[in-house]
Structures are given as C-alpha cells and as structure tokens.
C-alpha cells in the first residue's frame, strides 16, 4: 500500500442517464453549439497528426474553428498510425452475417476483459459505420470485390467479417485520407500547421488548459501557443519499454506533462503484447517489427523439446519438437488470443527451449502449410510478409521456419477522459491511443484505427464545441505569469539536461529502463518483481539526472536533446506503470499477475475488488501517486470469464 494513496472515487458525469442506444444522440442534443460565424474567433490547439489528431484538426477547421496543429515529424503524413497493417472494424453488416452495432459493442467490451466503460464503447460501435462512409468519400482505396463493393474479412477471434482493409496497409491508407483532409484545410488557412515542432508542456491557467509550450526542433526556438482548448492526440506510450513496435520517436511527453499538470492517468498497466514479432538480433536492436497475426492461421508454432538444442530446425525430428500451443490448447491451437500466445512463448523460452540469438524466439513453421497447399498458394497468401521477414532477417521462410517473439505493441491505458473525451483538466481533451477510453484491458484487432477516427472525426468536434460554447474564458497573452512560469520550467529542464555532461548516453538509460519494465512488468508480473522494479527505477531516474550525456546545444537541431527529454518522462511513467501493475492484484486482458491465475494457468479477474478504472493523480516526481477509482458498471454485457481451452 505504501506505493500509492487512495483518493476519492471518480465518475463520468457527462454520459446521459438514458438507455445506451440513446446516449450519444442525447448528449449531442444537449451539447451547446457555437454559432458558425463565431467559430473562427476560437482557437483550438491539436497536438499530433495521426488518425485521431489528423481527423480532429481537419474536422474542426472545416467547422470553422481556427486550428493550430503540431507534429514532431517533418510532415503530418508520417504519424505512426501509418504502420497499422490489418484493418478497421465497422458494424456495417454488409455480409449479412449477423453483425450489428450491439454485437460490435458486445465483442469490444468482452474483448477488453470487462474493464472498459460501456457508454464509450457503445458510441464507438455506433460511429464505426460512418467512418467507412467518410473514408470512402475521401478516396481511401479499400479492398473491393469484383462487383465493385467493399470486401471485408474476419479478424481477431470474432465470428463475423466486419474488418475493412486496404491490403496490409490499412493504417497508411486511412492516415493518408486524414492527412489529405488536413492538407486541404492547411491550404484554406483553417489549420496553422507546425511540423517538426514538439510540445514541451501544457499551459494551465485558472484550472483550464489554455495552451502549450513547444520547441521548434530545427531552430531550437521555444514558443508559446495559446488557445481556447487543447487536444492531445499524441498516441501511446509503448516506447517506455524501449523495444516495441512503435516508431522510434513515438513518446509520452505530451500526455505525461499534462499528467504532471493535473490530468489523471488511467490504467497504465494495460499494455498489449503482440505475439508475432520478429525477434531481436542483437544488442544493437533499436525497434521491433510486427508480422501480421494472420500468419498463425497456417503456420505451426514449436520449440525443441530439449532445452539448449542447438541443431538447425530441419535437423530436429518431429519427436524432438513441441508444438506447445496445439498441445496445451487443443481447441484453439495456434489461434489462441494474443495475450495467451505471448505468455506461452515466454514460458517456453524461460524453460530454455527458445531459439535464435539469446534464446528469445520460437519457430513459426510453414513446412506443413507448403506441403498441404503448395508453395504457390502460401506465396499468394503471405508473400509480402515472407518478403518482409527475409529483408529483415536474411532468412528465407519458405525454407527455414520463421522465428518470432512477442513485443509491446499498443497501450490501452492513457489519460483519463469522460464521455466528452475531456481529461480532468477542463479544456484539455484527449483522443485516440493517448486516452484510455475504449479498449479496457485488451484491444481487439482492427479496433485502434476505428477508435482514432471515431474520436477525431465524430466524437471530439461536437464535444469541443460544447466546451467552448459553455465556457467563459478570459483573454490571456504570453505575458501571463502562468505562461512565463511554464516556459521557464520547460526551458530550465532542457538546460539542465544539457548541463549534466555525464558519462552515459540517453539510449543506454532508455535501454535499461526498457529491460527492467520488460522483465518485471511485461508479459507476466509478480509482486516481487514489481517491488524490485520499483526499487530500481527511482535509482535509475536519479542516475539519469546525474550522469546523462547530451551533446550539443538547445539552440539548434539536436536529436540527442529531443530523446533525453522524452526519456526523462518515460522514467517517471515507468514507475507509475509498475505502481498500477502492483496495485491491481488480478489478471485481466494484457495485465497478467502470476498470483491471479486459474489452475490451468489462465488469467483470473477479480471483479469484486477490481471492476474499476484506475485513474492516477500525479504525486510529484518520486512522490506517492493518488488512486481515484472509477467503478465500472455492466448493465448490458454480462461479466464472464474468458475461456479458450
């Protein structure tokens, strides 16, 4: 208990108390409107240009607001949404296979292991159909059937085919759609775009978010931008683990700085680990690459039976192989859900049966599939993935089994928001992966793109309008004491990083942080391990501030400084991640506590004690965070234990 304090419960008070199908309509009807002619007098800051941010910026500008938008990349088209492969869910029921808004809602709540808020999830499912219409109108080239209509496929353990896709590049195509809509508004003057500019801090005046401090990454200049509201669309915090499938520069600084200014951070321990990534090849590894989960449809996963068997895979006879998923889960075999497949791989490697460098890998073997379907059919189905694997590993998966290992992929946790997507700082809205709202403890495949676009195109804009219409804001300018104080703090922090001139690089700290978190707060978490991590992390943070070496100056382009600043936030976030994981003495979704499992090793929830979202209030650097619980009520979907045996 000493790692946190218990504060008052928290509740979402913005979802109307009407039947779930009517909530969103009612909320929109109750929302105050801003007269179209007045909108241009209101400025909104949007940080991030991924699916959520790009969609929000474009839509708000179309409605007439003055938008100031930021991304750290050199172009808004490069946000990491672009790397999503699989697809986007929508309850169109084009297949006539029994899908409906209610079924998508139900699947998402259940898939989230009953740790999400029903109101938000229902709205997500409702909005899903409009997203497809919007994207098609923008020219997103979804896969189509010969008749010219949209093709769909099934995804991630659901029994309907509701996933729309654009080959293996759905994220790219949707993002380009949002980027083009945003570009149109940039050209029209509705969006003032600042690329290569990173948010350093949130400006809060009289308890309300009124702007940001940002650094031009090319010139090093630090500026303030003031507005009526701030939207954070800055993605997840998976890079706290150093190695993840996130982009190298994806970071949590924007949400962490907002957290430090008063925004509660919800469920940080809900992190998703993807079972089929390409394993690390050595200490130089800088990031991990995901291979589509669809490979598990035809590939068979195995490890050598005997620990330390160094024979090449083709020299290991059938009798000396363990197809462990098929053995342990005869019903689902190689197709068990992500968390189960990931944990099983780790268990095998812990037993010393792992393959490849460091023994951190398992085989995904297509030999049987090639025998059964023929190489041509396998090539037709998985050719691009095999090529990608070959490019990265230099091994030909048609001849040698692939090696795979789980990796951090997505973070369900994020800033706490109410039904309006507003954080606990009024005027600070959070959309997309940066918030915690829709996926509970586990996200289903093809739902991240859906949520990002739902938030950006359809949910945020009317709620932001409501905030602006119903809030009287005093005029502020850059001379306001809160503004100058925030700038001084942000500048001081960078100066301090530059002045340490120690003997360790930023990356060496980031790697060590990642290793601690991966070992103690990764696929399987124990009280002992988490306590150990919580002992080590503060030391690492202090060591960082004592001995990090950041070359160069702040007055010009300095990528080391950018990284140092981000890692300084990851170090603090890592601690909260472990505190949250330690306090949640149950297993649910992506959070597996070894102490809470069924006799056959599956995750066991504890609904009596933990059916709540954990919203953390910042307790100071190295201080004690305060837990605010939002009890979760399940009026529509019945609580049940998942079972895949």
């Amino acid at each position, binding site marked *: 208990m000493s790692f946190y304090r218990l504060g008052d419960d928290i509740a979402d008070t913005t979802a109307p108390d009407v039947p779930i199908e009517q909530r969103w309509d009612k909320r929109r009807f109750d929302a105050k409107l801003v007269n179209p002619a007045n909108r241009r007098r209101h400025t909104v800051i949007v940080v991030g240009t991924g699916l959520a941010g790009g*969609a929000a910026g474009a*839509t708000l500008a*179309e409605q007439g607001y003055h938008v100031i938008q930021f991304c750290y*990349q*050199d*172009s808004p*088209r*490069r946000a*990491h949404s*672009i*790397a999503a492969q699989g697809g986007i869910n929508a309850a169109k029921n*084009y297949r006539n296979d029994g899908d409906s808004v209610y079924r998508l809602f139900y699947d998402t709540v259940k898939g989230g292991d009953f740790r999400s808020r029903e109101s938000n999830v229902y709205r997500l499912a409702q909005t899903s159909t*409009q997203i497809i*219409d*919007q994207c098609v*109108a*923008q*020219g997103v*080239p979804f*896969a*189509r059937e*010969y008749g*010219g*209509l949209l093709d769909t496929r099934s995804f991630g353990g659901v029994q309907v085919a509701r996933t729309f896709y*654009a*080959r293996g*590049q759905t994220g*790219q*195509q949707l993002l*380009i759609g949002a*980027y*083009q*809509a945003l*570009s*149109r508004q940039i*050209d029209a003057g509705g969006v003032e775009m600042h*690329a290569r500019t990173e948010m350093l801090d949130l400006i809060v005046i009289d308890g309300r978010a009124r702007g940001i401090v940002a650094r031009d990454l090319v010139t090093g200049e630090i500026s303030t931008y003031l507005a009526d509201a701030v939207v954070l669309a800055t993605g997840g915090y998976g890079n706290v683990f150093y190695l993840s499938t996130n*982009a*190298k*520069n994806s970071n949590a600084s924007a949400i962490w700085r907002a957290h430090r200014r008063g925004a509660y951070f919800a469920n940080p321990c809900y992190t998703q680990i993807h079972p089929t990534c390409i394993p690390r*090849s*050595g200490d*130089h590894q*800088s*990031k991990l*690459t995901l291979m589509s989960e669809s490979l598990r449809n035809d590939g068979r996963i195995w490890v050598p039976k005997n620990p330390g068997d160094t024979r090449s895979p083709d020299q290991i006879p059938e009798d000396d192989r363990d197809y462990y998923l098929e053995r342990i889960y005869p019903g689902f075999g190689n197709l068990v859900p992500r968390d189960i497949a990931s944990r099983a791989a780790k268990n095998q490697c812990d037993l010393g049966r792992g393959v490849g460098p460091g023994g951190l890998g398992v085989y995904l073997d297509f030999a049987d599939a090639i025998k059964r379907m023929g190489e041509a059919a396998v090539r037709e189905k998985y050719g691009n993935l095999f090529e990608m694997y070959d*490019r*990265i*590993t230099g091994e030909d998966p048609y001849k040698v089994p692939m090696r795979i290992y789980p990796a951090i992929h997505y973070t369900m946790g994020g800033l706490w928001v109410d039904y309006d997507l507003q954080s606990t700082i009024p005027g600070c809205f959070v959309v997309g992966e940066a918030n915690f709202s829709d996926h509970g403890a586990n996200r289903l495949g093809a739902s991240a793109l859906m949520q990002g676009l739902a938030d950006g*195109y359809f949910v945020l804009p009317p709620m932001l309008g409501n905030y602006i219409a119903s809030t009287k804001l005093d005029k502020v300018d850059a001379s306001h004491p809160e503004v100058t104080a925030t700038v001084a703090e942000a500048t001081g922090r960078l100066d301090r990083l530059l002045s340490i001139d120690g003997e360790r*690089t930023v*990356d*060496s700290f980031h790697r060590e942080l990642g290793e601690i978190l991966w070992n103690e707060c990764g696929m399987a978490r124990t009280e002992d391990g988490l306590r150990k991590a919580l002992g080590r992390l503060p030391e690492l943070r202090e060591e960082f501030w004592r001995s990090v*070496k950041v*070359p*160069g100056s702040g007055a*010009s*382009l300095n*990528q*080391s400084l950018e990284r140092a600043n981000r890692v300084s936030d990851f170090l603090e976030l890592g601690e909260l991640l472990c505190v949250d994981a330690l306090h949640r003495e149950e297993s649910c979704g992506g959070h597996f506590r070894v102490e809470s499992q069924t006799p056959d090793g599956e995750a066991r929830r504890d609904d009596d004690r933990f059916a709540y979202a954990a919203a953390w209030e910042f307790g100071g650097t190295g201080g004690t965070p305060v837990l605010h619980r939002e009890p979760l009520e399940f009026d529509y979907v019945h609580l049940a234990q998942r079972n895949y045996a």
Partner: protein
Amino acid sequence: MKLTLRIWRQAGPAEPGRMVAYEVPDANPDMSFLELLDVLNERLTLEGEDPVTFDHDCREGICGSCGVVINGQAHGPRALTTTCQLHVRSFSDGDVIDIEPWRSVAFGVLKDLMVDRSGLDRIIQAGGYISAPTGSAPEAHSTPVPKPIADSAFDNATCIGCGACVAACPNGSAMLFTSAKVAHLNSLPQGAPERASRVLNLVEAMDAEGFGGCTNTGECTNACPKGIPMDSIATLNREYLRASLGRK
C-alpha cells in the same frame, strides 16, 4: 564486419558541408542500416563529438521519414527497400560506404543527412485530396468502384512521400510523387468532380516549389521503395492534357 562510412556533415542550412570518414570496426550483418548509424552515434556521443543527424521514425519502411543516398543510390542498393529496411548484410567486410542526404534544389539540407521536404506537402495541399468534409459522405456502397480501378488507385496510394524519386532524378523532378497522387485520386469516381483542377493545381505547385521537369529517365521508379511505376507519369500527362484542353 569492418566498415568505413563517409558521411556528409553539415552543421546547418547555411553552413558548408563536407564528407567525413568514420570507421565502424564492429558492424553486425544483422543490423539495419540505421542501427549502424545508431552505433556510430553512440560512440560519437561518448567521444564528445556531434552525432550524425538523420530523419527516421517507424523503421518499418512505411512512414517515409528516412532516406539517404548510399553509394550514389537513393535508399541504397536493394530494390523496393527503404533505408531503414536495408541491412548491413547487403555490404561486405572492408567496404567504404558513401552516405549523403537527398540532393535537390527543392530539398534544402537542414543538418547532416536531414533535408527539408515540405515542398511535397505543399503539392498535396494544392489539391491532392477529395473535398469531402466530415459528415457529408454518402453511404459507402452507394458508388461501387470496379476492382481493377480500386486496385490501381491503391497501388498509387502506397507512395510514402519519402522523396527518393526526387533525389534520384537528374532533374530533381517530383513527377513520380505528383503523378502517384493524381493517378490515385483522379481514377476514382469520388475524385471525378475535381479531376481537372486537381491535376492543374498539383503541377502548378510542383513547378512553383522548384522541382525540375520530367524527361522520362526513369531513375525515379527504380529508386522508389514502393514500386510506383512510370505509367503513373503517363497518366498525369494524359490528365494534364485533358484538363488543359478543357480549360477555358
């Protein structure tokens, strides 16, 4: 593996640049090309030297951030491969590798290997979109799109905007980039209403940004990590002619 990297170092846009040689005695064949630069940068940092600046992000070949000229080739020796997906095993022990930024009149060097590609964004802003404000969309199935058209639109839409086509072109032309957008949007029924203005505006913006003219040398398509074909340029030319003739 022992490699010698000769890297373009330039402190800022207005500073003179030069090639500087660095030895990497412990390169691992399984490293990606950017990890090779990471390893060098870690060492430079500890030695008190300024690490090499380069653009990169997803490191999966899809964001389009990375891109350098390696031994004279944009994105290096492997076809259909971005710099981040190139691995050290494509080189041999003892190799000397020249690493330079994209070079083009329209791409100014910001620092070392990082260039300013914002001109590509401004081309898109000039009309590389379909005007469909949020909420205005008709039901997705109200307009079927024949599969061959949808597939070809997709192929063109896979452009990652990395700028390799411009860097590879002897004229510094952005024709392949621009034509991919025209071919993507102008072929779709949703893009038809703005078909003429789109191609005219995009070409005008391309010229205004200082990109060179196209003389069909085809270096662009060879360098393109996504395999955007020369056919797209033919499509642009056809669309441009059609729009010009129809213009009052």
